[in-house]
């Protein structure tokens, strides 16, 4: 492997939790406007960032809005004015933003948001699950999930580059598990400020687009020299056509996520699979568990232990949930006997959202593995190594039996 452009000894090791890792990343990204509202477990991000502002360490305008709805609204306004904008939230806060999530993507504004995953009410709960992230599944945001705080730092920086890529121009949500990552101390390698700024190409530059009534190419922003009307009423005669570039941008986002992952590897020496999927011991595996977020660590550890005992088990961690890597998942699982999809969230009356995606991916596979949905860890319940082993053992049984008796199973819940 080539030596990274910034070798490890030139990177600063900081003992930080996941929230702080995000805050430090944002500090280095020449962000113009941060508009955010505190909510557990995201709060540390806004606290740390406020300190950077208070100490004059950044030139960012920090807008301490009165709600998450206004947080996203202010980010939309700021991004439309040509600024680089960031926000972060969790659970109820994300739910309150909901209508604006669609507007941010529909207006093609490259906002970056850290979603510190937390269970949705009721009952009210502050701990981790992915019900909040699943709720924004269809909103047109790119959704990335990280496994640890190092990845939270790296991915936050990458997110700006992905969002602002001329072929993408979509908002990006960086998901990190509440408490498991947000409040857990970890040594994180950080780049010098200059390297981050160079990686992003300096301040945000809005893309240029041709505007017929001005009869010229102008930057897409609120600019008194080039008066644009952004967000007009758009009815059945145009709305559909205007949704198609969004479809296309999502399609292109996969490649961009991969490219940026590769660029990051060259710069820092760190990469996360191909940027889209980070798999462990899948090549010759009979059974595979698919998972999002920090639980991947537990799954990989247990898989390594079971491998030593002779079980051919593997783990697929999806780093990217939107756009969903259908082809990659299908190809990767070719020849696997049984696949367990681990959902830290549920669509009531159906299966877990991740399971639905994976089964769609596998439908077109000629060698379709058996598929089981394991719902686990709701409301922050820990996924213990014993539960992980239970999943692998269950999948092994399914593989041996050659059929699935129960498609939807709940792991670690009292009866």
């Amino acid at each position, binding site marked *: 492997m080539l030596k990274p452009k910034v070798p490890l000894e030139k990177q600063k090791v900081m003992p930080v939790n996941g929230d702080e890792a995000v805050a430090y990343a944002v500090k280095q990204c020449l962000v*113009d*406007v941060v*508009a955010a509202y505190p909510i557990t477990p995201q709060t540390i991000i806004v606290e740390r960032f406020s300190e950077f502002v208070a100490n004059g360490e950044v*030139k*960012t*305008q920090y*807008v*301490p*809005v*009165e*709600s998450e*709805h*206004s947080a996203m*609204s*202010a*980010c*939309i*306004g*700021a*991004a*439309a*004015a*040509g*600024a680089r*904008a960031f926000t972060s939230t969790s659970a109820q806060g994300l739910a309150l933003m909901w*209508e*604006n999530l669609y*507007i941010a993507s529909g*207006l093609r504004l490259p906002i970056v948001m850290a979603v510190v995953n937390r269970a949705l009410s009721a009952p009210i709960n502050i701990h981790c699950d992915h019900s909040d992230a699943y709720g924004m599944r269809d909103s047109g945001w790119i959704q990335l999930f990280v496994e640890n705080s190092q990845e939270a730092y790296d991915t936050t920086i990458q997110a700006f580059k992905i969002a602002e890529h001329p072929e993408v121009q979509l908002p990006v949500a960086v998901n990190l598990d509440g408490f498991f990552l947000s409040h857990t101390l970890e040594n994180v390698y950080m780049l010098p400020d200059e390297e981050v700024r160079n990686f992003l190409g300096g*301040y945000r530059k809005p893309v240029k687009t041709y505007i*017929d*009534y*001005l009869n010229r190419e102008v930057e897409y922003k*609120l*600019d*008194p*020299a*080039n*008066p*644009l*009307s*952004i*967000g*007009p*009423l*758009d*009815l059945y005669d*145009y709305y559909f056509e*205007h949704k198609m570039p969004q479809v296309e941008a999502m399609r292109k986002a996969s490649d961009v996520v991969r490219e940026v992952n590769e660029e990051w590897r060259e710069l820092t020496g760190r990469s996360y699979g191909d940027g889209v999927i980070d798999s462990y011991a899948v090549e010759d595996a009979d059974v595979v568990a698919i998972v999002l977020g920090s639980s991947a660590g537990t799954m990989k550890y247990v898989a390594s232990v079971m491998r030593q005992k002779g079980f051919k088990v593997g783990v697929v961690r999806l780093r990217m949930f939107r756009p969903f890597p259908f082809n990659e998942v299908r190809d990767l699982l070719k020849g696997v006997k049984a696949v367990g999809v681990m959902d830290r969230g549920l669509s009531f009356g159906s299966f877990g959202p991740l399971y639905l995606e994976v089964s769609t991916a596998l439908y077109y596979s000629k060698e379709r593995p058996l598929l089981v949905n394991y719902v686990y860890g709701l409301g922050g319940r820990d996924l213990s190594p014993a539960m992980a082993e239970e999943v692998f053992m269950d999948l092994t049984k399914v593989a041996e039996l050659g059929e699935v008796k129960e498609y939807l199973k709940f792991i670690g819940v009292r009866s």
Partner: protein
Amino acid sequence: MCGAEEVSEVSSGNPQPEIGPIEYEYGKEHSLPLEFNLRKLAETRKPILLPGHRLCAGCGAAIVVKLIGYALRGPTVIANATGCVEVATTIFPYTSWAIPWIHVAFENAAAVASGIEAAYKALQETGRLPYKNIDVIALAGDGGTYDIGIQALSGMAERGHKVLYVLYDNEAYMNTGIQRSGGTPMFAWTTTSPVGSAIPGKTQPKKPIADIMVAHRIPYVATATAAHWADLFRKVRKGLEVNGPAFLHVLSSCNRGWRHGLETAVEISRRAVDTCYFPLWEYKLGEGYYLTDRSLQIARNPKLKQPIEKYLELQERFRHILRPEGKELLKQLQEYVDAVWQDLLSRAVNAPK
């Protein structure tokens, strides 16, 4: 007051304003004088709202927006809440906006404007804003202000963003077809406060939104109407010039919802002031309330004050209280208007004591 002669001069003359986008060159000084000569204004100043929009014939809001445009001082951006003005001025592929304009959602014009203002500040502080200043205006109707948007508005005011928030108040959800709002006056008919045999229209009075904004202790709050256009010009300009949030409450009639003739939008606004239903005033932080224009004249000469019927008689939405059986309700409404007027007189610095 600028005279009526100037108004008739414009309507009888032919000065055709240049139509099209208003483009402010980078790096140049842009400071437009506040012009009260309507002819000169029409000949030299491009309108911010271009013809061809789909607002109803006789709509008060179109007049209000156009007048506000004539009082701008240079590069300006508008954040528009969902509402009549938003839907009727931008149906794709057309736009009537000659200056930068954005619509995001219903309840968040103030928050969007906050973000825009913060962005320009950030650009300015890092040497990337090609202008000395860009003014930011949030524009919303009564639904987007009194009701669903009050949280974002209050937040914007509390945080001190340099934004002029303009409320064009047509006193109901007109865009969805005349439903009651917090800005609908007492006893007015709407489709969700219908006049029935048990309930005579809306039973609650109008929320004192401008006073609520005064209570935020922002630098400038004022009321205005299209009928008192010079007063409106001055207030728009003051609102843009103060160093912080400003709130301008403009009464804006809706002939569909108020049930009046197409030609009476301005006349109704005049009568709203003449009857003290909608007094004209401004509030300057540290100084207090000042009556302006016609309302100051009425305060000085109470004989000028007209009975509320003068305002109601042009509008079918109040038809039921002008009938003999509505006498008691009419009395209640008059008492309410009088009480609010007296309260204002007691607070106004320039009212005769």
